[in-house]
């Protein structure tokens, strides 16, 4: 070490330190170091903004029909206006419908993941913390539910219960928690044995306090990473279900329903199928990227490894 620096007074040393940055700034500067993180958050931001301000910037009414413009390919224009991505079987603008569809994807993705994440974290927390026979029973239930592939479970339930946007959100929310339960339980088991938890007990804290103050905050980062993955899974599930006619019903515009229309005219109008699928792919890709980055960011142990 340079001998000079030891002569610096405390005040000088503090003055030489970079000014403390606000949290959003720090997050942004870390984000800027990762191309994947930048791409992911950019895509997700665009989709969310579209979902909110869609009607304002949408070139046409997503329900507006143009009889002359039916089945017109991308780049079509007439006296009514121009249609960059072409028109569907009723002459409705594909671009405007894709913008309108973002609303359902964002809504379904966010709300069902909030529901499933909350249930999953509570379930995993109880299972891991209480342990013993309760843990055993809870985990066997999870095993049983995991044996039925997620999408099949959702299809079966929505087939029985009936379809619709709000029903679908609830169904996805009340089935998606299964993914979290086991991971969170595993994390709880790990954290439970940590020295600071044992210390908290030694200091006489109640079990409930230990669970909520010392254990819960330490499993939240895993839950956030999982939630990002689940948003993608949920968006894909919604589009599959709507495509099969078991999810959201017209006239609500969703990407899955657009694909279901596109499939009927697959021989003549490829653009009806191509563009909504690209919208889904880009959106989910954004979510996946953001999830990857979050995992690296929140868990320094795995940073750069996977």
């Amino acid at each position, binding site marked *: 070490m340079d001998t000079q620096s030891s002569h610096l007074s405390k005040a000088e040393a503090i003055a030489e330190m970079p000014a403390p940055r606000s949290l959003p700034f720090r997050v942004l500067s870390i984000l800027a170091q990762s191309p994947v993180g930048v791409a992911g958050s950019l895509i997700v931001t665009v989709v969310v903004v579209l979902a909110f301000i869609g009607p304002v910037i949408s070139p046409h009414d997503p329900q507006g029909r143009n009889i002359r413009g039916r089945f017109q390919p991308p780049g079509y224009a007439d006296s009514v206006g121009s249609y960059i991505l072409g028109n569907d079987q009723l002459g409705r603008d594909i671009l405007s419908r894709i913008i309108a569809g973002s609303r359902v994807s964002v809504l379904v993705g966010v709300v069902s993941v909030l529901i499933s994440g909350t249930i999953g974290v509570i379930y995993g927390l109880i299972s891991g913390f209480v342990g013993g026979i309760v843990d055993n029973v809870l985990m066997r239930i999870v095993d*049983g539910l995991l044996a039925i592939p997620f999408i099949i479970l959702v299809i079966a339930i929505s087939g*029985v219960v009936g379809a619709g946007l709000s029903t679908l959100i609830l169904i996805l929310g009340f089935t998606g928690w299964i993914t979290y339960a086991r991971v969170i339980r595993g994390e709880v088991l790990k954290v439970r044995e940590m020295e600071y938890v044992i210390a908290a007990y030694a200091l006489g804290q109640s079990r409930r306090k230990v669970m909520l103050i010392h254990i819960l905050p330490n499993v939240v980062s895993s839950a956030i990473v999982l939630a990002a993955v689940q948003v993608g899974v949920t968006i894909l599930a919604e589009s599959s279900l709507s495509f*099969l006619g078991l999810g959201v019903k017209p006239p609500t515009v969703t990407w899955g329903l657009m694909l279901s229309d596109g499939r009927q005219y697959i021989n003549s109008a490829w653009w009806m199928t191509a563009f909504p699928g690209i919208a889904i792919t880009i959106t989910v890709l954004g979510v996946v990227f953001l999830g990857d980055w979050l995992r690296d960011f929140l868990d320094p142990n795995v940073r750069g490894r996977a």
Partner: protein
Amino acid sequence: MRGFLISRLIQLVVTMFIVSVVVFLILRLSGDPVMVVAPDFFSQEQIDQMRKFWGFDRPLGEQYITFITKAISGDFGTSYLKKLPAMEVVLNRLGNTWILAAASAAIGITVAVPLGVLSALKRNSLLDLIITSMSSLGTAMPSFWLGLMLIIIFSVHLRILPAFGAHEPKALIMPSITLGVGMAARLSRMTRSAMLEVLNQDYVRTAHSKGLMHNTVVMRHALRNALIPIVTVFGLQLGWLLGGSVVVESVFSWPGLGRLMIESISVRDNTVVQAGLLWIALSFILINYAIDVIYIILDPRIKFQ
């Protein structure tokens, strides 16, 4: 080892029991199953009769016991649409789903393992970037959409592959590629991280430093050990494969269990839905049991608890 297999077998039975309860409850979620299928013109008396005929007037627990005892002996009721035993209807289709799943899994593994290994060996290179990006893309893409795009390219425009059915071997190509791509995307990601983990191990460094050929180290020392997590993930991804097949079978009108499920759900042919769900779960559980056994063969270090 025997003790381990037996304890896993007991766990398997317990899981199947829970699956049966879940499946039984799902089909009761609609409330009264009789009201769903009974025509509007039925009188209250006729509805009561129907309810009694199917045993829906009994307590839920009793209904479950009747259901499960019959199911164990292979009686899942009669499909009211096809007028055949539900089990027969399901088993007729199960074979086609397994053909599709096996072909997709084969494509997935053949593509994913070499790419994943390559990606890990050339870590942070351009090649790695391309492979990992393709893998993310494959994960994000809805598989049924990929299927539709393949139909547009190969059936509508090039006219070289059939868009639907299972009448000729060529019909298997597109559905299995559709699912295989998704499978490959998921597996290559896992292969890469498993390989990276193993390549950092001391024994790989030792193997290198005692002068073994690079390829020998990669194949014999690294890949063999990396296979363990890969096999596990493969088993879990089979769930994704079975789920994806439900939608993809509908796209290609592939006469498998998935399409049968969709058809039966929309006409509320509940006995078939029940039998189908149980068979899908059973296949999934059995395969993962088989994987546990493979696991032991691959890794003699694993202690049987």
